[in-house]
């Protein structure tokens, strides 16, 4: 049996398979599989105050993918800490709380509240394409990103993962800026900005017009970006983007990820995260891998 254990920014995970923020809900996904089997769980975006999210339709299908413009609908940090976090902490895996904001001040207030909780790690979303002026602007400019991360580093000792956007010219610049300001890890990629127009109604399919593209269609983009970021920074990488099978997860690990998150697959096959974990373990056995460290030996391309 290969040893699947990983250490991500000082936190021990029993295996490297987790879920992508926004595609997982313990109360709902837990109807289909045993959450305890996951390496870690990741919440939907939590902001300082409650957010209503965007109007519907929020979902559109695309070839080999989907667009969403949910817009980070959430209860706000106070209610999250009271109502959701205790429920999530009962599972036998680290809880990563994803944090969203529209300004440095908003991010800071959310992180401050979450720092005083039992959250095991924070994932700072600076890459959501679905919020006006929010999130994404911090994820596309290395200077702005650095300023935000510097402020957050001051107020939290929790392991802090920065979630990066692929909607940039050079993702390694932002990754370096994050590492330079003391981020403990990088997660990538968030969704790619996309759009669909219904040729019968002649109107955009999503109420917001544009949304974030995810699913197997974007996997090569994720592999490429993980590969480049791996060469740019030393901190751990949680890779994500179109992982549908255990072999896809292995591909992201070979590109440079230390852990892999399953997103859209968990929406189109509710039990996908545990299926992918099983397939991933099978791949390691087939390849004669003894531990996750073995992936590193093959990264000299």
């Amino acid at each position, binding site marked *: 049996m290969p040893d699947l254990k990983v250490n991500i920014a000082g936190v021990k995970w029993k295996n490297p398979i987790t879920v992508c923020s926004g595609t997982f*809900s313990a109360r709902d996904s837990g109807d*289909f599989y045993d959450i305890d089997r996951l390496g870690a769980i990741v919440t939907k975006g939590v902001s300082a105050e409650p957010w*209503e999210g965007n109007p519907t*339709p929020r*979902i559109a*299908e695309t070839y080999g993918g989907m667009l*969403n413009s949910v817009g980070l609908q959430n209860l706000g940090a106070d209610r999250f800490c009271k109502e959701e976090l205790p429920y999530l902490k009962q599972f036998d895996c680290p809880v990563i709380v994803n944090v969203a904001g529209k300004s440095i001040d908003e991010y800071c207030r959310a992180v401050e509240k979450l720092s005083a909780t039992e959250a095991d790690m924070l994932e700072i979303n600076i890459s959501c394409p679905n919020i006006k002026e929010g999130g994404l602007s911090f994820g596309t400019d290395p200077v702005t990103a650095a300023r935000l991360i510097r402020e957050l580093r001051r107020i939290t000792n929790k392991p802090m993962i920065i979630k990066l956007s692929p909607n940039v010219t050079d993702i390694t610049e932002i990754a370096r800026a994050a590492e330079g300001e003391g981020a403990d890890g990088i997660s990538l990629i968030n969704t790619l900005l996309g759009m669909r127009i219904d040729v019968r109604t002649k109107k955009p399919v999503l109420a917001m017009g544009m949304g974030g593209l995810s699913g197997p269609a974007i996997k090569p983009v994720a592999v490429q970006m993980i590969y480049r970021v791996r060469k740019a920074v030393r901190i751990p990488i949680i890779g994500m983007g179109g992982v549908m099978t255990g072999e896809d997860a292995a591909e992201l690990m070979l590109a440079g990820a230390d852990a892999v998150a399953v997103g859209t697959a968990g*929406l189109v096959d509710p*039990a996908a995260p545990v299926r992918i974990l099983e397939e991933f373990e099978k791949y390691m056995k087939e390849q004669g891998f003894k531990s996750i460290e073995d992936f590193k030996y093959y990264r000299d391309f």
Partner: protein
Amino acid sequence: MKEVFCTKVLKNELIAKGIYSMILEYHEEIACRIIPGQFVNLYLNRKDLLLPRPLSICRVLTESINIVYRISGSGTKELSCYLPGALIRVSSPLGNGFDLSICEKDVKPKASIVGGGIGVPPLLELTHRLVGMGVSVQAVLGFQDEPYLYEEFQKAGAAVRLATDSGKTGFRGTVMDLIKDETSVQEAEERFLGEICFACGPSPMLSALSGHCIKTGTLLQVSLEERMGCGFGACVGCVCKIKTSDGAILKKVCKDGPVFPGNEVVFDA
């Protein structure tokens, strides 16, 4: 626990223009727990069409379920091509169905069913259950042009009134036109829609019906439709506004619904 399992298409045939009726093999022990108004996710055998198609359950049969669907895009078109014997993945029953507790009382209420277009199929299993409980059912079914399934409602024991936009069959106009027409001539004590009404159909119809039922004092339960992602609550793609004492909150159509009390739904203008 809920699951997604592989099952067999037993029948898949055109029953009206653009409308198909599919019978799927289904685990008996799950089928017997289906509540009318629930739906299943159907997962297509195509890698490029990722999202499940959430389709309402029209009838629960012996070791099978009947789904009646309209071709409205590439997914349902694909579905219509599956021949008997084809294998397809299907989910456990999802969502909350109609609340029939009021009909379990000794004094049975008079109930009505109001369906518009592709909102008609999920009301058939409900009609069977209601009639089986000894409830008298008035069904008002509306279609654009060609009615379908209405004979099944008659066979189930409901009194059926038809409305078609084209006037081809039954009343010419919408179900709401028909209901308002009837209500104006009926005596107050024998209210046309009865004490409780169950409805599924286009949003403007449900919105108008909700206003009407508040006036006539009829309890209303509506089954909503919204574009879904996962269909089981994780993605929060399909939300609707539900009134609360201090405003409104967003609820998930797939997991908190699709059936909601008619007077609590905030319909978009």
